[in-house]
């Protein structure tokens, strides 16, 4: 207790220097908490897109579908498959999808020749996809696809120069290779984080798509959402064991998108690397201050030793001082950093706009990754800082203190 009191008083004695060291540590910790929060937020967004609208937790396909994405590589006897998956005990949603490459053009008459754009029909179970994490989550009930009403991806709509309420002409082939074409009404324009939907998607209700493609009781993809994304592998195993799915490919999102799965797993390493960089830098600043103040007090330590303080007591005192200062710095930094994270989590941070760029997103591996990041607060980031600072300041001060404590009091006082 006495040691602590002396340590506290010593810090107060050189207030400027204590404040400078405290500021350095606080700044480092603020940066750490904020940047790691930013990482966490952007990974969350990626994970949410993958396990939400894009993949769900588990997907079922024809074994060759992912390679070829051809209209005739479908899951047959859909009703039987759905019934078996639906009868499983786990709580989940099951939603079939149809895909087909087509050409889309504005259906309105105009002076200029109509430009056609490659597009993809995405036939979905509208009610299943309108729930949380579904492909149509963002749409108001009246804007949802229904009958010949479709939702069009934002980029495709811009390229075709069409808007809500206009007609859309679609030309393609049905499942047997016969030409197929139809007119649809654009009910909504959607900004989806799924790149395919955003850049090429003509999202319509499952039955409309099935009619266009002359498909019955079949689907190209079944999206299954369980209760937790990290239990996807087990869910996939259980689904794969169902007899009706024995000929099909059943993959969890981790198996279907190994590169993202790996990236998400690597996030913890990024956090640590970043922690190391910030703390090597700040340690060289903190250590500097703390070692200097210990060295210049060699004479004072000699005095304390001379009046009977144990060498271990001297080391303890310096250690307490330095760790005390460090922890106060971390505390301030954690408070400021957390406040910034919480504030930014509310408003979002536009990474591109920070650099004066206008782009809203970047496509990578089928996901349209938004440049607007909502940082997420994670308590362990604060914990990392506490541990790192405690170790740094302890190491930086014990060395000079130990040197001093080992000296003969008389010698130390003469230095």
């Amino acid at each position, binding site marked *: 207790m006495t040691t602590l009191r002396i340590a506290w008083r010593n810090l107060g004695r050189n207030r400027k220097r204590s404040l400078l060291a405290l500021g350095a540590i606080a700044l480092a910790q603020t940066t750490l908490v904020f940047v790691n929060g930013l990482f966490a937020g952007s990974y969350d967004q990626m994970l949410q897109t993958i396990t939400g609208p894009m993949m769900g937790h588990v997907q079922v396909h024809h074994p060759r579908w992912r390679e070829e994405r051809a209209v005739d590589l479908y899951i047959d006897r859909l009703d039987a498959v759905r019934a078996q998956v639906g009868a499983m005990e786990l709580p989940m949603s099951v939603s079939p999808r149809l895909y087909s490459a087509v050409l889309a053009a504005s259906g309105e008459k105009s002076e200029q*020749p109509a430009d056609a754009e490659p597009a993809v029909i995405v036939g979905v179970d509208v009610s299943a996809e309108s729930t949380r994490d579904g492909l149509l989550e963002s749409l108001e009930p009246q804007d949802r696809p229904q009958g010949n009403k479709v939702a069009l991806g934002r980029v495709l709509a811009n390229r075709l120069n069409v808007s809500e309420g206009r007609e859309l002409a679609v030309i393609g082939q049905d499942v047997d290779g016969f030409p197929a074409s139809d007119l649809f009404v654009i009910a909504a324009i959607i900004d989806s984080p799924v790149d395919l939907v955003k850049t090429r998607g003509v999202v319509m209700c499952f039955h409309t798509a099935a009619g266009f493609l002359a498909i019955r009781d079949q689907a190209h993809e079944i999206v299954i959402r369980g209760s937790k994304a990290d239990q996807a592998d087990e869910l996939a195993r259980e689904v794969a064991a169902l007899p009706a799915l024995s000929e099909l490919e059943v993959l969890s999102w981790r198996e279907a998108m190994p590169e993202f799965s790996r990236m998400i797993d690597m996030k913890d390493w990024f956090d640590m690397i970043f922690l190391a960089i910030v703390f090597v830098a700040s340690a*060289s600043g903190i250590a500097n201050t703390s070692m200097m103040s210990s060295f210049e007090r060699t004479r004072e330590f000699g005095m304390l030793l001379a009046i009977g303080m144990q060498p271990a007591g001297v080391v303890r005192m310096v250690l307490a001082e330095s760790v005390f200062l460090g922890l106060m710095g971390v505390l301030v930094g954690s408070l400021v950093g957390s406040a910034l994270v919480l504030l930014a989590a509310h408003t979002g941070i536009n*990474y591109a706009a920070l650099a004066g760029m206008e782009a809203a997103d970047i496509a990578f591996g089928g996901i349209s990754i938004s440049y607007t990041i909502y940082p997420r607060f994670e308590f362990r980031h604060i914990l990392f800082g506490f541990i790192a600072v405690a170790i740094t300041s302890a190491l930086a001060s014990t060395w000079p203190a130990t040197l001093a404590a080992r000296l003969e009091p008389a010698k130390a006082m003469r230095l």
Partner: protein
Amino acid sequence: MIGRISGRYALRSLWRHPRRTILSMVGVGIGVAIGLIATSWMRGGTEMQIRAVSESGAGHLRVVPKGWTARRENTLRLPDAPAIDGAVRSIPAVELAAPRARVNALLAFGNRSAGVEIVGVDPEVEQRANRIVFKSRLAGRYLKPGDQNTVVVGRTLADRLRVDLDDDLYVTLSGPDGVRSAMLSIVGVLSTGARDLDAGICHVNLEVMEKISGYAGIGEISILLDDYRRIEETRRELGRQFAGLEVLSWKEVNPGIAANVEGDRGFMRALVAIIIVVVGLGIVSAQLTAVMERRREIAVLTALGMRARQVVGLVVIEAVSVALGGSVIALCIGGGVAHWLATRGVDIRALMGEEFGFGDVLLDPYIYGDFGSWIVFYALAVSVAATVAASLYPAWIASRVEPADALRT
């Protein structure tokens, strides 16, 4: 005279506390080294991405018809293309100028179909200007000048259509006069290794493009320069020559990647700045200690006629010496790591997986750090600026020492 004295005095006082001086130097050195390494990595990454974007079809610069930016309409064509082409090639910074024309189409084979953007190219130029051609594995052959109704497609596209060499694809597109169709024979299949990218490759000769689409001429000239740092100057030059056209840089053609490059650059700079500030606070504290314990000396010097300006100079000279020492340490650590980054490179496949497609851009699997004479300037400039800035407050304190007060205590 007095300047020389304060210089010598400064060095002597640094030498009187070698441990403190060395600690300060190491602090500055590590901070600047981190900045150096981050900058080397960032410059290397930026250069790789610019090279990848420009060689994947965007060009460093691209000349397009007026109105292209607003509509991004593939069927717009350049008026009087040969004259533009000639003028572009006459600019010395231009290494390659690739004329292209695009049209959207639906390819079909049997009951399989796929929507793509068909690109009409000059085969000889394309093989040098487009990495999607020259970095891919090619089955069969690439297009030749004078080819009739031939097409080269990506591997994924071929698999999806279930076609291979010598198969005939049925093409449907909307031309100036309505829906048109044609048959094209596959002579080559390209595979870059990135599945999404390979699903979008479909090249034909410019003449074939004119014939099947009904749109005459070319839609763009993509320009590769000998050095990406000459983009802005060349762009102004082209802008002067072609007032009726749009001249775009890769940033406008591919704003997604541009924002990535710029965002990363801003982020890195902010981090380096914070690290330097943290280290700087350490220097402030060290300098302050040095000033406070020399109050009496400074008081004596002031009493002997040294001016406040010279006292400030004294502290700043000390700071510059620390900075010089720090930059040597930064060069040893940072320069070493940057050299390693530049020669060994970092395999980003570990980060991004086996596919290096970023949208329609084919990335390199390695990032090489940038290493050059800039490292020396960077180390010197950043250490001196940071250390001198950090010494201003202690210098101000030193210049305000009242001789009488200081000597009496």
